[in-house]
């Protein structure tokens, strides 16, 4: 994985255990989120973004269960999914800064990270919008003889929209090897998840009743996420969809400018983190020197990424109209360019 290589450059040895790997990846994701938040505060970014801080176990556990040639689609809260799949921290942060070294050349921003070469097909800013993409792409790979699979991440809010169950149904019908990951962080913006679905795990019950293999995992235990992820990924490789609901906690506000104190207690996120931080929970199983090695490598990687992202060029305004169509001669005004 790209991120592991990045860390190795900063003298972390091999990440020998699953715990070390999870720890390293989760820390990297969190550090990227923290860096983005910091730079946002310093006004390097305008516009919004959605932090996955505190939810890292889902992205990390699932990502570690995947192969390089697997495909991922994600949602608006996708920085962790991207990093986990191997999008460089630089490309993520630079996209946030809208630089040409961003993963979409700086024209997408926070909700439009795409990196085909590492299989991160990408985010979408429409809740539930990427589910068909993942399953159609995975189904094609299978058809072409590959056992690569796709993972489609979406939130609990997405499950309130019919598209989620519908996409699972269609994937099941056509036997698309797609793992649907429902990251239940307790909220769809200001709408509490349990008010819509009942307690965490309720969504899994529904998908189970659809006769699609489904598991519910408490995301405070990253190792458990990884293990269940591996099981399901293995099952999906046999050519069927599956579903996993991971209960996580949205530590930060919905998006950077969200007045979440209006609908949940102030500091609720921070308090949860103090008590349950899944990254901290991993420490016990990792040697202290290795923890430090990882920490300093992560911080070096993120510093480098921030630096590189900041130094990226802004897109030329003359570039604004490029690439709407693949067809030769079709630009924004079509006909005029054809002739």
């Amino acid at each position, binding site marked *: 994985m790209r991120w592991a290589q990045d860390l190795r450059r900063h003298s972390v040895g091999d990440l020998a255990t699953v715990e070390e790997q999870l720890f390293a990846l989760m820390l990297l994701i969190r550090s990227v989120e923290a860096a983005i938040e910091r730079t946002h505060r310093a006004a390097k970014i*305008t*516009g*919004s973004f959605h932090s996955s801080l505190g939810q890292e176990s889902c992205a990390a556990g699932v990502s570690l269960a995947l192969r390089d040639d697997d495909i991922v689609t994600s949602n608006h809260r996708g920085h962790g999914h991207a990093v986990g799949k191997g999008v460089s921290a630089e490309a993520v942060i630079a996209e946030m800064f*809208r630089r040409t070294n961003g993963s979409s050349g*700086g*024209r*997408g*921003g926070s*909700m*439009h990270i795409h990196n085909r070469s590492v299989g991160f097909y990408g985010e*979408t*800013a*429409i*809740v539930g*919008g990427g589910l068909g993409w993942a399953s159609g792409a995975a189904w094609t790979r299978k058809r072409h003889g590959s056992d690569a699979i796709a993972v489609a991440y979406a939130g609990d*809010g*997405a499950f*309130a*929209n*019919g*598209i989620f169950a519908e996409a699972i149904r269609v994937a099941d019908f056509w036997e698309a090897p797609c793992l649907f990951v429902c990251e239940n962080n307790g909220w*769809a*913006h*200001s*709408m509490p998840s349990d008010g*819509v679905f009942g307690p965490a795990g309720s969504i899994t019950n529904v998908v189970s009743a659809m006769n699609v293999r489904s598991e519910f995992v408490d995301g405070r235990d990253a190792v458990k996420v990884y293990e269940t992820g591996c099981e399901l990924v293995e099952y999906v490789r046999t050519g069927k969809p599956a579903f996993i609901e991971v209960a996580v906690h949205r530590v930060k506000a919905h998006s950077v400018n*969200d*007045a*979440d104190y*209006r*609908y949940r207690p102030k500091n609720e996120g921070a308090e949860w983190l103090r008590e349950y931080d899944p990254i901290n929970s991993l420490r016990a199983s990792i040697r202290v020197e290795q923890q430090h090695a990882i920490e300093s490598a992560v911080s070096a990687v993120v510093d480098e990424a921030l630096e590189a992202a900041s130094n990226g060029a*802004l*897109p030329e*305004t*003359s*570039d*604004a*109209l490029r690439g*709407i169509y693949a067809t030769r001669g079709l630009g*924004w*005004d*079509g006909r005029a360019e054809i002739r």
Partner: protein
Amino acid sequence: MRREVWAGMAALRFVDAVRQALADEMEADESVILMGEEVGPLGGVFTVTRDLIERFGPDRVMDAPLAEASFTGFALGAATEGMRPVVEIMFSDFVMIAMDQIVNHAAKLRYMTNEQFDVPIVVRLPGGGGSNHGPQHSQSFESWFAHTPGLIVAMPSNPSDGYWMMRHAIQLNDPVIFLENKAMYFGAEQEVADEPPADPWAAAVPREGSDLTIVSAGRMVGRCLSAAESISTRGIDCEVIDLRYLWPMDVDTVFTSVAKTSRLLVVSEAVEFCGWSGEVASRVAKDAFTSLDAPIFRVGALRCPIPVGVALEDEIIPTVERIEQAVVDCMDF
């Protein structure tokens, strides 16, 4: 329309004007309810419904699950039964998911049922660019709705219209698509007229002039006024018309103006190609043809997705400069 007089603060921002209109209609009529994602305790991502749940309670300010099609359908059902739901689609782009309920159902229900059901619903669509939200959060769909039989399409350009047009929309017994431009919400405060316009449907003429008629709506009206102002220093005197409604469309006011100026420029934030500016231009090319001394110019968004970042966006959505240039080109003819 109930012709209540506005007795609030003299000047409001657009966001506050819309909120005030919602509050005043809710006060006046129990059947007015708000539905949508985050409209409750959060008060909407753009704060349009802020504090309304405290005032009117969760039975009237209803946070909806993330299910645009279903809560719009639910609102339609409530509307046929006597409620006056105001539905917020958080970003107009998400209305794609509720299109069936709006276009195949709300817009046609009265006609299809041989007038057995009215659908007094307002669908609020915060849309347009200028707020750095990227390609799936910046679109301008007003031309589509103007094209759709059964819908009324309101597109205010300033706080006073934000207030009075919203009140009007809520009182109508037909489905209204109410386009709010996100980039206008937190603009300058402006006085809200004491009374609604005598003819609620009439276009406004925020600037009179004799040389050229600029027709626009929504956020672009401000840019047209700036362009007119700036170009006046070059001795060109533009009249600016704010359509206010794309349907019904007050083409008479346009004809009257073109009869005076003989020149027309239409400016839309929506994509120019097959957009509503073509309707204005075509109507003039048909019914005011003999008034024209020059080709009809249009400036609209280029047919390109809206990238994130205002610098790129400015290449696509009409700027004051592009509007000015079009005025000059038209005058040069």
